[in-house]
């Protein structure tokens, strides 16, 4: 049926946007489509992609995680500090940092689920706290001098494929698996769609929220590890503003900001669009301030599209 095709296309609209942008940049700049540049793009977006999985969960339940950026900073500083100053082994340093990331997420979860604080305020507060804490710990100076093997996570290759891209791929697969195949993934949609009905269905709404914010912290933490390995030095402002890009990716990928609707497959497109947009603009020597303007506009377009659709479906009732 024709109208069925239309709704199919609507669902995949973001991929069409991606293809169009891709072709546009390919025409505008001949360096854009080289294999090495494409892998560069994938590597650049990998951190956003990894964090986007957790952020997708959060936005699915109608929440927001503004602490993602400062979690990345904390992970950078703490992991580096443990390895360089405390002589931790690589693995135990990474695991400790990831645990800390999940714990910060859990604090957000506690504030939102148990204390019923609005997510935007709770995560804003933790963002500031941990940004400050990371700065205090590092003393405001970069920490560096890691084991050579640590570079592999962010700079290594398996065959032609960069390791961070593989990690991102695995995270996407895990995210899609959780949302589509596990019962608690279904609960995410339920809680985002109708909290009251979810509660009456026997879903432990508070526990789900707590879980989601912890997961968001964990994914952000993993992105932080990748970043640390790529840059090979922990900057005390490493993750500043990072959450903005992640939220843009997720919303661009069609996850409804009012909760209850979204797909990982489209979030991938959102991540890739931000990737080629940034890369394309860099290749074309667009200044970073112009890039900010463009990305802000993209965010408005993405949210605006979502809101318009919401208004439409409400007025139908």
């Amino acid at each position, binding site marked *: 049926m024709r109208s069925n095709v239309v709704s199919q296309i609507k669902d995949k609209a973001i991929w069409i946007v991606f293809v169009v942008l891709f072709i546009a940049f390919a025409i505008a700049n001949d360096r854009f489509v080289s294999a090495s540049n494409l892998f560069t793009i994938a590597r650049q977006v990998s951190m956003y992609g990894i964090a986007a999985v957790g952020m997708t969960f959060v936005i699915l339940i109608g929440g927001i995680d503004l602490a993602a950026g400062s979690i990345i900073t904390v992970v950078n500083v703490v992991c580096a500090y443990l390895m360089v100053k405390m002589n931790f082994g690589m693995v135990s340093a990474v695991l400790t940092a990831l645990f800390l990331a999940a714990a910060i997420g859990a604090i957000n979860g506690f504030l939102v689920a148990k204390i019923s604080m609005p997510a935007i305020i709770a995560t804003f507060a933790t963002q500031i706290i941990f940004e400050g804490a990371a700065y205090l710990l590092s003393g405001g100076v970069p920490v560096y001098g890691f084991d050579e093997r640590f570079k592999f996570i962010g700079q290594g290759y398996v065959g032609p494929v960069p390791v961070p891209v593989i990690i991102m791929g695995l995270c996407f697969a895990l995210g899609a698996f959780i949302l589509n195949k596990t019962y608690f993934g279904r609960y995410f949609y339920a809680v985002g769609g109708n909290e*009251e*009905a979810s509660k009456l269905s026997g879903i432990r709404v508070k526990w789900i929220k707590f879980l989601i914010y912890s997961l968001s912290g964990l994914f952000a933490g993993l992105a932080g590890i990748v970043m640390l390995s790529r840059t090979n030095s922990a900057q005390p402002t490493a993750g500043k503003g990072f959450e903005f890009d992640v939220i843009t990716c997720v919303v661009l990928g069609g996850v409804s900001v009012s909760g209850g609707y979204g797909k990982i497959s489209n979030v991938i497109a959102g991540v890739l669009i931000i990737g080629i947009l940034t890369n394309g603009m860099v290749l074309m020597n667009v200044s970073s301030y112009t890039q900010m303007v463009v990305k802000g506009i993209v965010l408005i377009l993405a949210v605006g599209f979502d809101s318009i659709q919401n208004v439409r479906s409400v007025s*139908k009732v």
Partner: protein
Amino acid sequence: MNEEFVLELQHITKVYPGVVALKDVSLEVKKGEILALIGENGAGKSTLIKTCSGAVIPTSGKIVVNGKEFDSMTPQLAAENGIAIIYQEFNNVKGLSAAENLFLGNPIKKGIVIDKKAMEREAEKAFAQLNIKINPKTLVGDLTVGYQQMVEIAKAIKQNAKVLIMDEPSAPLTSAEVESLFKICELLKSQGVSIVYISHRLEEIFRLSDRIVVLRDGEYIKTLQTKESHVEELIHLMVGRDLTETYPDRKNTINEDEVVLELDNVSGNGNHDISFKLRKGEVLGLGGLVGAGRTELAQVIFGAAEKTSGRIVFNGKEINPKSPREAIDLGIALVPEDRKRHGALLDVSVKNNISMPIYKRISTASVINSKIEIETANKYKTELLIKTPSINQQVKNLSGGNQQKVILGKWLAANSELIIFDEPTRGIDVGAKFEIYKLINKMVELGKTVLLISSEMEELMGMSDRIIVLAEGHMIGELDKNSFDQKAIMRLASAVVGG
């Protein structure tokens, strides 16, 4: 053009992805008549009337108002042309007074400030015109559903509506409130206002309407003169087959010695000292007026509201469910009455809605067994006659009655031991009602126990083994099957409790 018709819908077709909601439907509304619009759940009634307000844009067809032709409407156009629709979810502002609601959007002003006094005076007049007694100063949120609806009607009339369209107006009302609604309808009719009335309650249709239009599967079937028709004919036209009985027979399934649920002086959530026993295989009816505390009591048993004193004993053990999760784990289910707020997950598919309470059970190491999920969804789609192109359809795209069926299916799938039904057939068509009754019977025959809340007296008497009547949060009386009597129940229900 025909002078006589105030509103004509001509050859309306509406196509949704995968669904043809309306196929070439035409109908006319005469001046000063009450036209009933009936059909099964998903027949297209709501969709059809929404084309009159622009809430639905027809794929093709014309809307003719007083001879003026439109391809589609907007809410403004509808208002300008004297068409008002009262949906089931009212568009009122609960925090404003009745008078302010009446003037919502165009308040009476004195300079730049609103003139409350004048609005209250005007509101008083508007209410008096409809013979309704509402203090214009009362906050709408403090009014009962019935009065809220009357405020909506008054608003429509104040805006000079010539055609008043009501989508299942009686569904949330008590019998007394339905009587007042009828009086208002008659009054409006005598003033030359035309009314389009949608309802699944056929006795209302026969009392009220002049003509009846029947839809089935999105198609126009027939127009009848109410006086020349009868219930069997209507049902036949709606369902496309004969339905002889209203309530299916049930074997006596009660196990006298096995008490499944016992309430011992339970208070809380607005109820006081409620005590009763519910035996295995029994259907216990909870009667009373809307606001008597029946839903509130159900919430206490289900752990959705707090108990302040008393004991709840379930299967011989005292229980204190603190959350629905605990109650569900114990084997208690609640089918809630308010489907929009409590029941359905509108953005989620039919399949996921039905499986929501059982996901944990049908998962191995957290991974859902999708085969069982699909089988379960299909089973209840068939058994409850859920009309949807696919179990993957989002629930918000289903008709109101079919949403209700999805919620029902969800709790049937949960396979609990005690099931509390809160108004299970509200807004459900005759054919499906019968299926639901059969399911309730099947459940008690399988050894389950049912607590049934219903404001439809006939249904309560037809389905229950025993009825308990509540009024204002107190238990007023108990009736056995052989002493069921509509008048007696009504008398108990409207009892005024001392204090």
